[in-house]
């Protein structure tokens, strides 16, 4: 394999901290909403532009590295923009732009309280997400992972209702416990091998570690990253966290936070343990079983939910485990599929959440049973919803098909027929719980929506754009951002072990 060329650069540093710099500006301009929102928009464009400049290098195995400072003796707080990091950072920062516009429409449409805190927390969350994407080692990863946990809390409890507060408690209980497990795992790893740098193909190398220790360590890691990846049985914070405002659910609970979790799972599988160690100790089987159960169970539970956002949340739980399953199958195609699904699920699910929020702001309906005929009042919104629903069921030409195709191919490559069957069944279940909503929207009628039109353009335009993006990436996965090439490059580096 070709060797990654490392050069030092401060671009990753700026990419991480640009939104953190925006935080004091947002706080200071709390009395001038337009100026305040300008900072958010400016930071989001700048962040995306900075990440985008890293893309060509990532495609040519050139890795920008930024050592910020020595955080504990022997371990640096360091950022490294390998292909995987750039991939995740592109998605999160790109979708932040749309979410920012959408948020403005949403919070102003609902006349929400404490908008300054809202936008400030959002900016911190994005800094933390970039930090997670670019972490060069486990300590850096943990630092940003914990910051993300804390910065998300004010967004979860934003409405300050008793429901939101208890959701916040549950969220903290789950995520702080996970953080503790991750710290224990990192400490143990450090004492075993004396390094915490992520390494494509695994950081353990030739070190002789007993099977029991490996299993214990893997379970600690899995507990650490599994909560945010909402693998069953540690998923239940996610549906509860739907008490948050919809843009938060859209970006954080469909993209940034939960994807940080699955990103972490991939880092652990591909860059901490590595496929060889995973297979040698049977760790892939643990992950495969857990993700398979989660996919089926979450899809079934989604049927039960009449609340639109909660149904989408269970759908998210299921789709996150697609990605986890991609990691667990340990084959080149499954890695590619899993990594691609990080991007494709992001575009589709953010569209669906945007739609749910637009409906809520416009007509104050949250339950699916109240949505009869909403498609006539809000044709663009529900049209976008339909695109997302088709994609999640894995039907071409929406981009969900692409990632699922590679996941299926990966399952065959690994000889796991059961995994393939789970994917197929889950596709049907997805259609089963999403298409009835489309059916209600367009083919039934009620008086709920008389006199209502589309929501504010600030909300409708972003959701149409993300729906279009889902379609475009389905037709041409390499368009603009070379997502497909990146995903292939990442999976090759993990399988082949670029050193």
């Amino acid at each position, binding site marked *: 394999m070709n060797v990654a060329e490392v050069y030092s650069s401060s671009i990753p540093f700026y990419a991480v901290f640009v939104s953190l710099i925006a935080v004091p500006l947002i706080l200071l301009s709390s009395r001038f909403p337009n100026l305040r929102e300008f900072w958010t928009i400016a930071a989001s464009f700048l962040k995306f532009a900075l990440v985008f400049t890293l893309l060509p290098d990532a495609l040519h195995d050139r890795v920008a590295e930024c050592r910020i*400072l*020595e*955080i*504990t*003796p022997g371990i640096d*707080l360091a950022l490294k923009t390998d292909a995987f990091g750039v991939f995740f950072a592109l998605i999160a920062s790109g979708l932040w732009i749309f979410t920012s516009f959408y948020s403005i429409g949403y919070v102003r449409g609902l006349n929400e309280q404490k908008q300054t805190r809202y936008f400030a927390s959002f900016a911190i969350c994005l800094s933390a997400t970039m930090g997670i994407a670019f972490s060069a080692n486990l300590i850096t990863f*943990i*630092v940003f992972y*914990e*910051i993300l*946990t*804390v910065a998300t809390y004010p967004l979860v*409890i934003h409405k*300050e209702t008793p429901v939101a*507060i208890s959701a*916040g*408690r549950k969220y*903290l*209980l789950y995520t*702080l*416990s996970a*953080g*503790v*497990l991750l*710290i*224990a795992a990192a*400490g*143990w790893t*450090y*004492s075993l091998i004396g390094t915490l740098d992520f390494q494509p193909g695994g950081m353990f190398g030739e070190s002789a570690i007993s099977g029991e220790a490996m299993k214990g360590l893997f379970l600690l890691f899995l507990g650490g990253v599994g909560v945010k990846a909402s693998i069953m049985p540690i998923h239940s914070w996610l549906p509860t966290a739907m008490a948050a405002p919809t843009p938060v659910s859209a970006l954080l609970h469909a993209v940034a936070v939960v994807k940080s979790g699955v990103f972490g799972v991939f880092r652990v599988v591909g860059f901490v343990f590595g496929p060889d160690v995973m297979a040698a100790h049977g760790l892939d089987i643990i992950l495969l079983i857990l993700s398979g159960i989660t996919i089926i169970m979450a899809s079934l539970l989604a049927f039960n939910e009449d609340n639109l956002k909660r149904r989408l949340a269970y759908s998210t739980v299921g789709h996150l485990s697609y990605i986890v399953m991609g990691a667990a199958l340990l084959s080149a195609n499954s890695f590619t599929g899993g990594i691609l699904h990080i991007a494709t699920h992001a575009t589709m699910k953010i569209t669906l959440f945007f739609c749910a929020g637009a409906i809520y702001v416009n007509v104050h309906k949250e339950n699916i049973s109240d949505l009869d005929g909403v498609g006539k009042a809000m044709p663009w919104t529900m049209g976008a919803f339909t695109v997302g629903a088709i994609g999640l069921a894995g039907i071409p030409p929406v981009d969900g098909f692409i990632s699922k195709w590679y996941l299926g191919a990966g399952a065959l490559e690994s000889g796991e027929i059961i995994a393939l069957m789970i994917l197929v069944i889950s596709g049907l279940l997805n259609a089963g719980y999403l298409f009835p909503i489309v059916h209600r929207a367009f083919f039934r009628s009620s008086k709920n929506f008389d006199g209502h039109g589309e929501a504010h353009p600030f909300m409708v335009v972003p959701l149409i754009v993300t729906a279009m993006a889902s379609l475009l990436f389905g037709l041409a996965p390499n368009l603009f951002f070379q997502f497909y090439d990146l995903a292939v490059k990442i999976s090759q580096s993990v399988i082949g072990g670029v050193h």
Partner: protein
Amino acid sequence: MIEQNLPVLIPVSFLFAALLIPLIGNWKQSSTYPLVFGAVGFAFFLSIYGLSRVLTDGAIHYQLGGWIPPIGIEYVLDPLSSFMVVVITGVALLVLVHSKSVVELELPEKLIPYYSIAMLFLAGLCGMVVTGDLFNLYVFLEISSLSGYALIAVGEKRSSVAAFRYLLLGTIGASFYLLGLGFLYIVTGSLNLADLAKILPHIYLEPTVIVGFVLMVGGVSIKMALFPLHGWLPDAYTLAPSASSALIAPIGTKVAAYVMIRIVLFVFEPNYFRDTLHVADIITWVSAAGILFGSIMAMAQDELKRMLAYSSVAQIGYIGLGLGMANPLALTGAVLHVLNHAFMKACLFLVAGNLRTKVGHSTISEFDDSLRKTMPWTMAAFSIAALSMIGIPPTAGFFSKWYLILGGIENSEWIFVAVILSSSLLNAVYFFRVLEKVYLRSKDTVDVHHAHNDHVKENQAVKRNEVGFSMLAPTIIFAIGIVLLGIFNAVLVNEVINLIIPAGI
């Protein structure tokens, strides 16, 4: 020239201030503050200077009265003691700046005696740290203890009871310590720490030495409030005036912890308490129990200061745990936690003081979200300190725990690793309980019969009611310090703490 005198100048500057304040203050009360800040500022400057000299040139020895040790008394600034005096004087400087308004409010009549005693207290603490003589250490221990009792007893009505209880237990502790050093003196004929360290290894298994060692460790444990000998602490910290608890809580027990480290690791050899006597096991187990006990008790408290006091019991457990595990990583964690916890607890007690000054109470169940509007900066500082107590990176609290965890893993003591980690979650419970009230509980849901809420009722739009600059600045500096200590902890560990770790550990 001044370098050679540094060790003695630090406690002496406090002693002088303690004498001058009543002398000049009775004649001219306004001179009190210049004297206080002059003394503590001077001592802080000397400590910093001393630390920098010690780091470059090695330990500084001062022979009191020119008598050569082991006959005479020796004062020593080595990396550990110079680190400790910097912590003590630095924290004291900020706390005393803060205390000006609090003392004027809470103890208007007792200004001069209060500051005089506070100076004596600091003289005692610094003396305990710099002295190289076991009996001289006892003298300073008594100075700091007696003045500590007085500082506590000037508080509310019930505080004299708390102070009396502390006096009884503290005297027992000090007596044990005195008895222990007597035993050692009988067999060795020396009181000098360095001298003892040379003599003792030859007679480790003498019953007298063993008994002396155990008596000293037991006595210091009481002063350190190591679980289950912490009984005096919660009442003392809660009922003392805010200024006193902010001064005593961050550094008082830490100095006792320093004495413990000094005796166990420097006067005796580390493997004596670890392998020969197995005292280390006892210390680690009671510390672990103390961590859980303190954290759980803290969850049950309704008074902020009492909650912080129980949290201190838990945090002392971290230091005990790091000491007992006795490997370089764990000890790094323990020493770092002395500093980190001093900053966190100082910040939190200053917040409690700010609340008492402006709101009139610090009862958690009566907190509501008017606080975040009236005192936004105080509450921001509280949030940072709370996150650090929970151990969220990159605040300081995370890193002391990180080293302790690494130390625990190195010894394969998984139970202690689990205790440290689970205590993070317990901390999260009792701090978020407060944060939730301060930031999320709307004041309509709170009972508004209390007098202190009356002014809130009058005008619906809550006005900013933040404490004055002299109180706010120290609070904020501690909060910023917590973050900086976390981010730059590697510098501290590499440059200072690595030099502290004794050989043979």
